[in-house]
Every structure is written in C-alpha cells, then in structure tokens.
C-alpha cells in the first residue's frame, strides 16, 4: 500500500465529481453519502438533495455504515413517505454497499429504477473499536493517516500504528472492493466498478484455524466473544438485510426465545440472526462496527460466506440472475451431513 491518505483524497474528489455530474444532469433527487462525524473516528450518513451540499461528502477509512439500509422504505421514514414520487436515489457505494443493493433488488425490497449506485473503489475500513481499545478510554482527538501508518493523537499522547494491523478483518479478506458489474445492473452503476468475472477466488484461510477447534473450544470462544452483548440490537439495525417487520426475537406468538441476558439466549440470537442472513450477507461488517461493546462478529460473517460458497457456490449480491441459495434448491445438493446407516 503506498499512500492511503492520497488515495482517500482521490476517492473523495472522485465521488464528489460523480455526484455533481449526476445532479447537473438531473439524474438523481437525493444522494446518500458519508459526512464528517462529530468525533474523530466516526462518520455520519448524510442526505444531500442540493448540488451546493456536495462538498459535505467525504471519504475516509471510517466510512463503515452500509448506506443501502437507508434505501429501504420500511426503515427510512423519508423514503416511505415519498414512495410514490419514484425518487432516484444515489448511494455512495463501496463494493459491499453495491452488493447489498443488488441483493436487495433481488429480494424485491428496492426497485432498480430508484437507485443509482455511485461506485468507488474502497481502500479498506479501519476497525475503530480496535483502535479505541488500544488507548483504553483515553480521548482520541484526531486520527491522521501517514503513509502506511495511522497516527492517533490525544491530549497527552501521539502514537503511530500500522494501518494494516487495524484494518477490519473483513476488509483484509475482501476481494470485491468496487461494485461488481454485470449486464443487468450496468445501467444503474456509475463511477468505478469491476467485472464479475475478474473477481478473485476466496480461500477462507482466515477462519480455518477456528474451524479446527474442538466444540468445547469453539463454545468457549464464542461465549467469551458474545458475553458482553447488551442486546441493543445495533448489529441488527445496522444490517441492510435485517428488515423484517417483526424480528424473530420480538415475536411472541409463540415467544421463541427470551430476551434476557442469559448467555445461551445471547448466543442463540446471534446464531439465528446469522442463519437468517445466510446467503444474503455481503460481509460489509456494518454489524461489527456498529456494536457499542466492540464485539467483532467477523468470524461468523466469514463462516456464513464460506458455507454459502462451498455448499451452493454462491456469492451474495454479484448479479441479478443467480437466485440466492435460500430461495431455491437443487435435486443434487450436497447431503453429506445427512445421517446414514453405518
């Protein structure tokens, strides 16, 4: 990696340029992008409806929110109220954001004619919780990027950390940094994109160590990971695919699972949520980054990707043609897991 700061500036310039053109050509009514946050390692989603506000759009390595969730009428009051107007909404899209938009189109949650994917090539998201934890709870006043390092500044300290060490685990494994383009979605993507055929194969080597553990070790690890969960459901609410009107955890006819802070219940919530986004999850990492307690759900996300890839040879959100695995079936699906006589 050469100069991340320069890359960031370039990306920022690029998305502003593309957005400005879109406004000029009257191709969008609203652009959803990232704006400057009020604390140093944070960004906030912004909604731009005028060309003058374009310069509020920014890009840095803390743009972790998956903006596609703001497109969903059920989750966004503004979109719901203006549903009949057929607004054209531009979304600043990293590879994962674009994939979730495509996946949501397949799931009939958004109409392709209402979206413009403003593609850009993402250069990785930093794990802000990991950085935060590095400094206990000292206040970080600024984070700068210098070459391959990040400089974290506080009132009484200044420390240089390697960028790659604090890159989100999902971004390290990410192979699709720009929106994947195929014939059917080509007309809704502007800006940068990458051909689906050019996407590298993933070997999922990052979770093989965990997978080789015994079930006792796995349980201990997962329990330790999740036991801090406060059940604030930030992971669920940040996820573009958790758009159910009534989440299974809230259902009470019958009440499936209890909402107490009992460890088993917490693990179940995360497991079933994973089950529900299987074959749809685009590994954007919004859930992990949203978690106030800094729980990193990466291994679960990666495992989901792996299961879906290995079992059904599917990667979520690549094109509009392939049906997600949980929406279809094949006669000759693998069934090595089925019980057979000895």
């Amino acid at each position, binding site marked *: 990696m050469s100069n991340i700061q320069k890359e960031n500036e370039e990306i920022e310039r690029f998305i502003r340029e593309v957005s400005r053109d879109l406004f000029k050509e009257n191709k969008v009514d609203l652009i959803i992008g990232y704006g400057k946050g009020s604390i140093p390692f944070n960004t906030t989603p912004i909604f731009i409806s005028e060309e003058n506000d374009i310069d509020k759009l920014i890009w840095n390595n803390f743009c972790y929110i998956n903006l596609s969730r703001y497109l969903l009428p059920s989750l966004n009051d503004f979109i719901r109220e203006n549903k009949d107007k057929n607004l054209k909404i531009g979304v600043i899209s990293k590879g994962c954001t674009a994939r979730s938009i495509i996946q949501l189109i397949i799931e009939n949650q958004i109409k392709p004619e209402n979206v413009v994917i403003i593609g850009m090539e993402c250069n990785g998201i930093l794990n802000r919780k990991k950085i935060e934890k590095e400094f206990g709870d000292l206040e970080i006043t600024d984070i700068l990027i210098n070459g391959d390092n990040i400089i974290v500044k506080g009132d009484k300290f200044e420390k240089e950390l390697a960028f790659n060490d604090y890159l989100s685990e999902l971004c390290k494994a990410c192979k699709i940094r720009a929106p994947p383009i195929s014939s059917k979605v080509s007309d809704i993507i502007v800006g940068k994109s990458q051909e689906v055929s050019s996407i590298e194969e993933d070997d999922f080597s990052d979770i093989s160590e965990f997978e080789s553990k015994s079930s*006792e070790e796995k349980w201990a690890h*997962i329990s330790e990971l999740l036991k801090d969960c406060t059940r604030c459901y930030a992971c669920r609410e940040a996820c573009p695919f958790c758009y159910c009107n009534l989440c299974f955890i809230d259902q009470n006819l019958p009440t499936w699972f209890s909402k107490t802070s009992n*460890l*088993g219940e917490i*693990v179940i919530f995360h*497991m079933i949520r994973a089950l529900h986004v299987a074959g749809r999850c685009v590994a954007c990492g919004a859930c992990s980054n949203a978690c106030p307690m800094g729980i990193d759900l990466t291994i679960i996300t990666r495992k989901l990707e792996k299961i879906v890839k290995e*079992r059904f040879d599917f990667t979520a959100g690549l094109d509009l043609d392939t049906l997600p695995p949980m929406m279809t079936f094949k006669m000759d699906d693998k069934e090595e897991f089925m*019980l*057979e006589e000895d």
Partner: protein
Amino acid sequence: MNEIKNEDLKVNVHEAESNEEWEPKIIAFLCNWCSYAGADLAGVSRIQYPPSIRIVRVPCSGRVNPFFIVKSLTDGWDGVIVSGCHPGDCHYISGNLVARRRFAILKDLLEFFGIERDRVHFMWASAAEGERFAKLVTKVTKLVKGFGPNKKFVKKW
C-alpha cells in the same frame, strides 16, 4: 448486572457420564408421509430400538423451522432428529429439498458455534424403511449418549 460469570462458560459435558443410567432425551420431528409411517412400521414390526425419542409429527420436513431445533435445545432436549421423505419422494414435491438447504446451513452453524455436531441429525426414511429408522435412532442415541446431557443452550435456573 450481567448474569454471566466466567465459570458458567465452562461446560462439563462429562459430568453425567458417571451416571450410567442416564438416557438421552431426543426429540424427533417426523414428516407425516414417510418417516412417521416408517416409525410406525418399526413399531408394528416389533423392531427394537432405544426408547429415547419422543416424536412430533409434522406435515413435511419443510415445515421444520430451525427455531424448532434450537428451541428444543434450549428447552433441554439432548438431541434432535429431523426426518423426511427421500429426495424426490416428497408429498409436497420439494419440501424436503428446501429443508435440506436450510438444515445444511443450520448444522454447519451449530457446529461452528460449538454445539456438538452429532446432537442434531437430519435423515431420510421412507414409510417402508422401519428397520432403517430403528437403526438410525439407535445410532443417534448412541452418539448423543457419548456427549452427555446438553448444557450449552439450556437455560439455567
């Protein structure tokens, strides 16, 4: 306060092993058209198999929501069996094929989260396969017995 203490995280599955009498309790979701009839056949044919299973009859293996399985584990069942018609034989044409995908993911995930892989089983058994049904139940009982009582998801009182 968080109820979880560190000692709770350790699960001693072998605790009950000293007690030789312990028999696992296994819940079986059997599809109405094949497996339930298969179990029935095993019964009328007087084929011996362990009395560890309790049967819930469901219209199709596709009816089995993963919630059923996970909820059974939280309710303290030591093992779960889901059985349906062989692929191609489904009374509803493709219910079991849809279920198979669902179960594949569930089983992988359960294993990934640290539930012993052999606590939850999926199988095909037709109405004519009474013997096979009995054999498989025997096998599951043996496997589950090896793990001891299920404790990981079970609610603590």
